[in-house]
């Protein structure tokens, strides 16, 4: 899928950068940025390199989604580190790790997130004012539903990229996009258009069967690998409602910008790019993480 081959992946280094901006709608309505992002290691240099972005839901039932998204990227980093450590410790093979990525990684991330949310609920019980606000807007049934299952308040999507010398794993729950750009600037994505969400409902970590709904893709980095990997929340993808190709052009353009200006310079410009995009486009929070391979 990555077209023209570069030299073997063993010598390849990766460098990541990211930015998150409050949506234009959220600025005008004075609401928080409900997205979160985290890159491990913090200096963005790998491999190994782990990228995570999360988009907390905006509806009032999910009134702690800004915390839920932060806990989601924390859970993603922790579980991804445990996942890759198996190979580093020679406890498994690539083949077994591929199975583990499909069978266990989503469940481990989901459990870790729920544990973090439970701890947060105990440490910071939901004030009655939040429940009253939900009841006023959504009715008493919704209030009861959240009182019985307060994890709903933390609902969020989650996108992860795990890059090592040997493999690249992409993990997606809910809307947003993970895209890969090859050396020629050609773009492919983890989820195809047909399987994407229509409307504004999405899969979420707060669902009791969320771990079944993850989309996981495991690529062995043997002969070819992407020049650029991008993870973006749906505030970015929905700013290009005309066609998927308009959003895909983001990938090839960033690759070109990075080649012209360098990642460091592009990372300084990200905030401006994203603010302009939310202002002219979706109005939603936008979070972008990109990682480029460097010979």
């Amino acid at each position, binding site marked *: 899928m990555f077209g023209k081959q570069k030299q073997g992946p063993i010598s390849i280094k990766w460098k990541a950068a990211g930015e998150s901006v409050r949506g234009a709608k959220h600025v005008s309505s004075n609401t928080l940025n409900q997205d979160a992002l985290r890159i491990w290691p913090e200096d963005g240099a790998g491999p190994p390199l782990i990228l995570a972005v999360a988009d907390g839901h*905006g509806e009032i039932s999910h009134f702690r989604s800004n915390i839920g998204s932060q806990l989601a990227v924390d859970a993603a980093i922790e579980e991804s580190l445990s996942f890759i450590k198996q190979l580093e410790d020679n406890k498994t093979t690539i083949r077994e790790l591929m199975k583990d990525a499909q069978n266990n990684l989503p469940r481990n991330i989901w459990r870790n997130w729920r544990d973090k949310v439970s701890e947060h609920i105990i440490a910071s019980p939901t004030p009655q004012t939040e429940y009253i606000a939900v009841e006023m807007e959504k009715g008493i049934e919704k209030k009861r539903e959240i009182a019985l299952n307060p994890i709903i308040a933390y609902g969020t999507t989650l996108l992860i990229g795990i890059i090592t010398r040997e493999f690249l794993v992409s993990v997606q729950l809910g809307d947003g996009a993970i895209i890969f750009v090859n050396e020629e600037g050609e773009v492919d994505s983890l989820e195809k258009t047909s399987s994407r969400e229509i409307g504004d409902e999405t899969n979420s970590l707060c669902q009791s069967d969320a771990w079944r709904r993850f989309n996981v893709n495991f690529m062995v980095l043997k002969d070819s690998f992407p020049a650029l990997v991008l993870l973006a929340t749906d505030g970015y993808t929905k700013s290009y409602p005309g066609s998927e190709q308009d959003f895909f052009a983001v990938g090839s353009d960033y690759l070109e910008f990075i080649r012209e200006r360098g990642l460091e310079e592009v990372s300084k410009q990200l905030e401006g790019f994203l603010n302009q995009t939310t202002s002219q486009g979706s109005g939603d929070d936008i979070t972008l993480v990109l990682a480029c391979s460097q010979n």
Partner: protein
Amino acid sequence: MEKMEKKELPGGPVSKRELHIFFIADCSGSMSEDGKIQSLNNAVKNAIPAMQDEAEQNSNATVYVRAIKFSNGAQWHIPQKTNVQDFKWTDLAAEGVTDMGKALDMVSGQLDVSSMPEKMYPPVLILVTDGHPTDDYESALADLMSHPWGEKAVRIGIAIGKDANIDVLEEFIDNSEIPVLRANNPEQLALYIKWSTTAIVQAASAPPSKAKKEGTQGSKGNVDIPTPPSASDVDAEDVW
């Protein structure tokens, strides 16, 4: 020196998401009685400035309008998607039977995922009728609901007068949270048309994201519908 054509912003053209409104208007012979069709024409025309103001203030959506009329068969009254700022209403005339199913078929044809942007807002379908369908509306409605955008659409049903088939409108709406709007005089009709094209449009173009319901692949409607105006808000005698 950098080339002039160099891109300033990564990606293709950034734009607002589209919101499509479909008027589906009954033009059967009974609509000519007691001034119903002219009241509908007046109600839509009078709602246009408020629609345009709403769209102007709505920084999140580009609003488009289309209209279908049905009597003996169904025809496009406004065939092309028309930006609400350019929207003009030509008076409808009433004659013939009530081929509602044909109109729903035409809506279905436009709501196919292949012909609509994937990332638009849920469309708003406003069905106005004073009678009973005379064709096979049930299979047409089933087909409409089989389209993802048909199912996700905000469907508003307005009954003109006491002879309108409320059961059919409830089937069309298919959402217990949205009542059939019963207009028994021109003032109520004007109130409901204005509400459908302003308050509903505002709600449909600002749906906050939320989790899919447990154990499902998504619910039928994901727009929080504001409370409709009450018929008693209008101080006028029933004439229909």
